């Protein structure tokens, strides 16, 4: 159980706006961390800093023991990243796209072909391999993005809303895939769906206005809701931590439904 991601005092300011304001957490191997928070809370910004896309205003990030600011290449080599919206070159086919990613990740010849075949099977994109990415459905695009992130079998996997826009079957498939990989990787995924946290995550953190407001297991998150709340208990906790609304109205009825 070694720590694969270590974040200390992380901050990012855009002018006067403090998008991320002093965040600390660690992710160990074998953990699947659900990264929660309202829109604009700083989830994506944090992920962009961990993956080396944005430079932090303050604090340090170590991935696989490498400082992202001073050894960016070594850190990026051990990360697989699915950015928000799963961007990919629209003119390319998934196959040529994966060949490109493979070469950049240092695979050539038979090794490259083997890895591409393996990952294509894993995310089920066999049928669209020769179609321009531009013409693919949202679900397929997401899976191509996932294939790209998994190609080098990274020790650390970071996914910004991996199931956003997928239909229930696809969601189920992606969750099973994540759960399956969770044993030997450190995985961070952001999501708005709290059942997803319960289904795949071993731990959850909630960020609000750039600060951590919860860090614990899904069960602990669930346990924070009063006994009166029967349905959507996690939603209730989420709302009580990220808005002032819930705590001000002890009635609870509007939120979770009372038994």
């Amino acid at each position, binding site marked *: 159980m070694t720590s694969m991601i270590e974040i200390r005092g992380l901050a990012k300011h*855009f002018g006067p706006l403090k998008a991320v304001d002093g965040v600390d957490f660690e992710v160990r191997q074998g953990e699947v961390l659900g990264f929660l928070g309202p829109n604009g809370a700083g989830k994506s910004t944090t992920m*962009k800093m961990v*993956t*080396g*896309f*944005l430079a932090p205003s303050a604090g340090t990030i170590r991935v696989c023991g490498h400082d992202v600011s001073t050894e960016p*290449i*070594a850190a*990026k*080599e051990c*990360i697989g*990243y699915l*950015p*928000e*919206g799963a*961007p*990919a*070159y*629209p*003119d*390319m086919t998934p196959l*040529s796209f994966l060949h*490109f*990613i493979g*070469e*950049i*990740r*240092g695979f050539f010849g038979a090794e490259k072909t083997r890895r591409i075949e393996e990952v294509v099977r894993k995310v089920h994109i066999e049928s669209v391999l020769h179609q*321009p990415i531009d013409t693919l459905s949202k679900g397929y695009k997401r899976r191509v993005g996932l294939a*790209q992130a998994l190609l080098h079998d990274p020790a650390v996997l970071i996914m910004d809303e991996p199931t956003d826009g997928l239909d229930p079957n696809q969601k189920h498939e992606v969750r099973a895939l994540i759960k399956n990989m969770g044993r030997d990787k450190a995985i961070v995924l952001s999501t708005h769906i709290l059942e997803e946290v319960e289904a795949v995550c071993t731990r959850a953190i909630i960020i609000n206005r750039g600060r951590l407001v919860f860090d614990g297991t899904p069960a602990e998150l669930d346990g924070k809701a009063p006994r009166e709340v029967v349905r959507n208990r996690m939603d209730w906790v989420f709302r009580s931590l990220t808005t002032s609304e819930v705590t001000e109205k002890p009635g609870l009825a509007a939120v979770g439904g009372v038994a």
Partner: protein
Amino acid sequence: MKNLWSLSKRELASYFATPVAYVFIVIFLLLAGFLTFQVGGFYQREQADLVPFFTWHPWLYLFLVPAVTMRLWAEERKTGTIELLMTLPITLPQAILGKFLAAWLFALVALVLTFPIWITVNALGDPDNGAIAAGYFGSFLMAGGFLAIGSATSAITRNQVIAFVLSVVICFAFLLASFPGFTEFFEGWAPEVISEAIGSFSFSTHFDAISKGVLDLRDLVFFGSVIAFFLFLNALILEAKKAE
């Protein structure tokens, strides 16, 4: 090195994935032919050289190079692939050079396809092929200068049309730098050193000598420095604007 080639290869393939590359090459060849034979009076001059061909290259590049470079970074930013690219284990200089080299190779392909004009002039007379080779080399180098400007401007915006217009304007200023109307504007109030310095940044002045077959080290250094400077600027712009 391997990374650089993978990046260039992908970029170059994307030119040919859409009709852009073919349209560009056909228009470049048609315009080059038209300007050389109709406007430049290739036959009427009765001289076996390619001066009327090379003379037009700065003007051809003025509009065609920005069309090649406008998508380089603007499209990466618009589709969000820049986030993917910059989180792959490559360095920023590799990413910039990879794209630039792809565009430069593409320009080389267009230039090489003008070879019938070289065959024509050799069939009609006995030209100085050394001078022609120098002209081609100079033209290629100048294309690099324009491409570097275009690449840097493309990083400023997510909008390809804005990138195109901006880089035409900047390239135009570099072309005109030595023209009387342009230098006179400075002569009235700026010290002579400054108006001369501005004039010395002119692409036309540096290319004129090369197009006549004179390879002067100073001209080569000039285009080399323009390329290096604008690619460096490209890196600064990307670093500052990639998050937007």
